[in-house]
């Protein structure tokens, strides 16, 4: 149980809002497709704030221009990984951007124990800080 106000990991665009319905997710996918973005589904059981590379549930869907198709991929990922974090990411390949344009969480484990802060005291009052997931000590796939 996390103690921050939403009581959960708040990465992504919409973590402070109630869980998005499939219909609401579809509207966001449509917005991205309208901008020419390519959608991708990613999942992980290690949502450390600096874990950049979540696993890809297939490649970014560069040639898929139908929101229903993207949603079907998401549903496939949810069925395979019901207790993982899942996010939708949109890639923008415009020159000068060439990065992620949207990213939001669309699947979470039932319980989110969150992270502890490890302080290593060094040289007087200085500290080295490490953020560790409470669930991350166990092997991959057994964390939630």
């Amino acid at each position, binding site marked *: 149980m996390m103690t921050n*106000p*939403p009581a959960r990991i708040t990465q992504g665009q919409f973590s*402070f809002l109630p869980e998005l319905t499939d219909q609401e997710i579809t509207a*966001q996918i449509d917005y991205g497709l309208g901008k020419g973005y390519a959608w991708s589904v990613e999942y992980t059981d290690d949502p450390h704030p600096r874990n*950049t590379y979540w696993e890809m549930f297939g490649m970014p869907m560069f040639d898929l221009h139908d929101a229903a198709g993207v949603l079907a991929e998401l549903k496939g990922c949810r069925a395979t990984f019901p207790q993982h974090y899942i996010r939708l990411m949109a890639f923008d390949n415009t020159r000068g951007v060439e990065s*992620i344009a949207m990213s939001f969480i669309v699947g979470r484990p039932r319980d989110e124990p969150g992270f502890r802060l490890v302080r290593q005291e060094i040289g007087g009052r200085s500290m*080295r800080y490490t953020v560790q997931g409470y669930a991350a000590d166990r092997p991959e796939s057994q964390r939630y």
Partner: protein
Amino acid sequence: MNRPVEPAVITDAKKRYSAGVLKYRQMGYWAPDYTPRDTDVLCLFRITPQDGVDEIEAAAAVAGESSTATWTVVWTDRLTASDSYRAKAYKVEAVPGNPGQWFAWIAYDIILFEEGSIANLTASVIGNVFGFKPLRALRLEDMRMPVAYVKTFKGPPTGLIVERERLDKFGRPLLGATTKPKLGLSGRNYGRVVYEGLKGGLDFMKDDENINSQPFMHWRDRFLYVMDAVNKASAATGEVKGSYLNVTAATMEDMYERAEFAKELGSVIIMIDLVIGYTAIQSISNWARKHDMILHLHRAGHGTYTRQKTHGVSFRAIAKWMRLAGVDHIHAGTIVGKLEGDPLTTQGYYSVCRDSFTRQDLPRGVYFDQDWADLRKVMPVASGGIHAGQMHQLLDYLGDDVVLQFGGGTIGHPAGIQAGAVANRVALECMVKARNEGRDIVSEGPAILQSAARFCTPLKQALDTWGEVSFNYASTDTSDYAVTATAA
């Protein structure tokens, strides 16, 4: 002023360089037939000549005094390819609706400027000329930097795209707050404000411009407590968080020392004030590039020379210089907040920060096309008197690539700082979501916020407290080319 000899340019070299005083236009600084080259630096000045000085001579004088001229003829010009070094006023037009004011376009050959040096560039174009007696007032409105010159600058050390990648935050404005009160908090109390704001949902907290190292809080204390707060909030939320540690100090040695300590403690971002000067900014930008640090610039002091329309330097010129000099964040106005900012003019500053190619846009005060030659983009920061109830206007005016900073609008929340942060984050996320769903957030904004407030008590409290607050004053720095709407 000058004793007239002949009205036209003197081409006979013997006459041109005989000892005495000539009109600037006669010395070759007025060149109405000149076609600016792609490699020229172009400046647009707003000129208010003294009584009895005609606009052509005034424009030629500005060209002269910002390039090679001195008040009298010097024979040593003849040792040089002087025609290259003379800036050329090539167009003068009356400012619409402002009798006595003139726009003058002046071209400078690229040889005049040292590569990669804002100090050198500005020593020419805003050097002696701004005190020149025949002008009552002078304002640098805009500049066009040639691609060849842009490429001599390294630009932002991080840039807004890479900043988002490092922070893992996409598709929405970033949220920040300035720690308040500005002065008097001890390091320990200061860190409390930082922790509450970040844990509540903000991405950044910020030192204010005049927080350096005063008797009530020395800089090391501040850095230590703030970084504990940042890391604790990161663990509590699972997000990357930051707090702009202001390293502004008396000397570069002091600034480097503070920046090194910020890096050792793991900060993702440091901060400087504009008053440290252009050379210091370029130096700390080099340091930031070397150490993977985001560099935040607070434009402290700019209002002394950017605000009045007839004299000084437009902020769009400052913004261009700062993108070249290399900062990652720059305060660029809120439109709806407590500080100066006409909507269209402010949007012009945002274009200068974020575009790959800025198009001429007269209503927004952008006078030249500017190819940025793939120089990284600067994240504009909107800060000063804004609150959650304006979220629809902020998102509509400013777009996604901006840091929205709610200082009082977070810390002054009746239920506390965390509640203030929650209110702002919920307001932001619900507005981005609604916009993406295709809703008209300008007209539906208040209803969208009220609807989110039904599941979010802190947002309801914020709207009840500040919903009606606005700073509805006329702007002084507005475009001359369009009637502008007043922000509500």
